[in-house]
């Protein structure tokens, strides 16, 4: 450990909540957001009057469905009295918003911060599919690409599926990783989703199903890409000394990883076999004496399957380049394996709750309230990682 004072340890997760989750709920996204926030506040054993901070990703911003509510809408709807608040897209993954909440709590700007991520991408697409929400959709040819989109839209590469596929292809090329190996991110997620009543896809999936699925962008097939959904997830992040008498044992932030040391870009990153998760994970291990072997559960972002594999490598659960053999067969990452992974089904099967679903799952598992999919223990140490490409962050949680 190279850092002496780890201020995030003053903060903890004290409550979690979730709205209804589904495909095309056609519900008011602000209502879903408030459902999740109120559920998290109640889960912590607090009331709205106790909440004195708010943090969200990405704010009221983006293409249709990308954000269900902004900070101001929720502050106003609940008439919050905030000592601190924040929102923003340019941060260390979707859970960067939670890191900021932990820092606000650690500095004393707030005691109990509600954090949320809200999506309604399924309803926004309606029956028109992904094309309905692509940049320039419906603009009858007059749309011009500007900013960073100009470097990929003119080449008909508008999706992160395409961008991340090229990282996966480079990894396959350098290390010999195969689709049969990568499949286990999707297969593991699906077998866990079968025990998650809120998951989007719960039908059994076999390796044959995976290998024969239609291709999206090689090496990714349909089941390597997460499922857009509607829903909101929320947390309460509290000062540990204000959380000891609350409903759940505090889940303390043992260490955060938020670093970005390569270029903040999908095609200009120095090493095309990894992403900014390399930097975030490296930083995390400089802030704790714990080792990867101490981690009892991993919840790692799977917007695309390869991102999970890359997180497993960068977090040190296996060697760099060894992610394929590590997950092959799915035994290590099963609920009864040495490193249970994405026990709710991940975004591939439980829906694209965009990063927040992983922290929600870690919390309910560590509190032993995960229902049918609960793993043994319950786990006392969990790694949670969100984001891919240029926007990545991770944390170690320890149950006090």
């Amino acid at each position, binding site marked *: 450990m190279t850092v002496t004072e780890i201020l995030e340890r003053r903060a903890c997760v004290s409550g979690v909540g979730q709205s209804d989750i589904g495909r095309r709920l056609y519900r008011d996204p602000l209502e879903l957001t408030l459902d999740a926030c109120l559920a998290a506040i109640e889960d912590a054993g607090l009331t709205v009057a106790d909440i004195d901070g708010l943090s969200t990703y990405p704010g009221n911003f983006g293409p249709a469905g990308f954000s269900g509510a902004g900070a101001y809408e929720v502050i106003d709807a609940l008439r919050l009295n905030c000592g601190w608040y924040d929102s923003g897209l340019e941060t260390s993954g979707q859970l960067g918003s939670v890191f900021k909440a932990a820092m606000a709590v650690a500095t004393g700007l707030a005691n109990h911060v509600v954090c949320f991520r809200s999506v309604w991408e399924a309803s926004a697409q309606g029956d028109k599919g*992904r094309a309905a929400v692509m940049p320039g959709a419906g603009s009858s040819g007059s749309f011009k690409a500007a900013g960073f989109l100009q470097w990929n839209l*003119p080449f008909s590469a508008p*999706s992160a599926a395409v961008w991340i596929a090229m990282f996966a292809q480079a990894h396959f*090329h350098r290390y010999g990783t195969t689709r049969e190996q990568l499949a286990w991110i999707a297969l593991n997620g699906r077998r866990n989703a079968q025990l998650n009543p809120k998951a989007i896809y719960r039908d059994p999936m076999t390796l044959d199903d995976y290998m024969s699925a239609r*291709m999206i*962008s090689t090496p990714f097939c349909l089941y390597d890409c997460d499922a857009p959904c509607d829903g909101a997830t929320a947390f309460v992040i509290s000062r540990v000394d204000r959380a000891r008498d609350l409903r759940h044992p505090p889940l303390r932030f043992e260490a955060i990883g938020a670093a970005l040391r390569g270029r903040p870009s999908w095609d*200009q990153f120095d090493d095309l076999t990894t992403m900014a998760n390399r930097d975030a994970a490296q930083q995390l291990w400089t802030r704790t004496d714990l080792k990867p072997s101490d981690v009892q559960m991993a919840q790692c972002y799977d917007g695309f399957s390869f991102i999970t594999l890359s997180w497993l490598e960068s977090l040190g659960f296996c060697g760099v380049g060894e992610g394929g053999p590590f997950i092959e067969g799915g035994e290590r990452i099963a609920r009864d394996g040495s490193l249970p992974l994405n026990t709710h089904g991940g975004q591939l099967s439980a829906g694209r709750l965009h990063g927040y679903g992983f922290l929600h799952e870690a919390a309910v598992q560590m509190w032993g309230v995960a229902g049918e999919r609960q793993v043994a223990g319950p786990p006392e140490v969990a790694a949670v990682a969100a984001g891919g490409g240029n926007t990545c962050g991770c944390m170690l949680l320890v149950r006090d």
Partner: protein
Amino acid sequence: MADAPFRVLPKLTDANRDFWTGGADGELRFWRCQDCGFYIHPPQPICPRCLSKHMKTEAVSGRGALASFTINHQAWMPGPDLPYVVGIVELVEQEALRLTTNIVNCPHDALAIGMPVRVVFEHHEDPEGDVYLPLFEPGA
């Protein structure tokens, strides 16, 4: 190039115009620091290596190597016939001088990371100014 597919074209600016229109003269152009010689992409107003603002666009050879690729099967938006190839090409002039592009005129089973490629331009007429997309095909 005849029968170019529909493309979303870039909005031309002073910073990007040479990149997107150099193909009219058969040239692939990048910004380059005139003090330390560093090529820059995407354009920015300062050299990240020496912090000089003394930059101008220069033509490169148009030769490079395929750093990675994907064969896209999904109809995200109107565009080339499916499936088409998206690639990242690294130019020979400088390590990590890269761009996202399409690989054309190449059988898909011949695609390989590291293969030599060269630029070929796809011309698009537009009332706001013609654009020449730099695509790449196999060749040294």
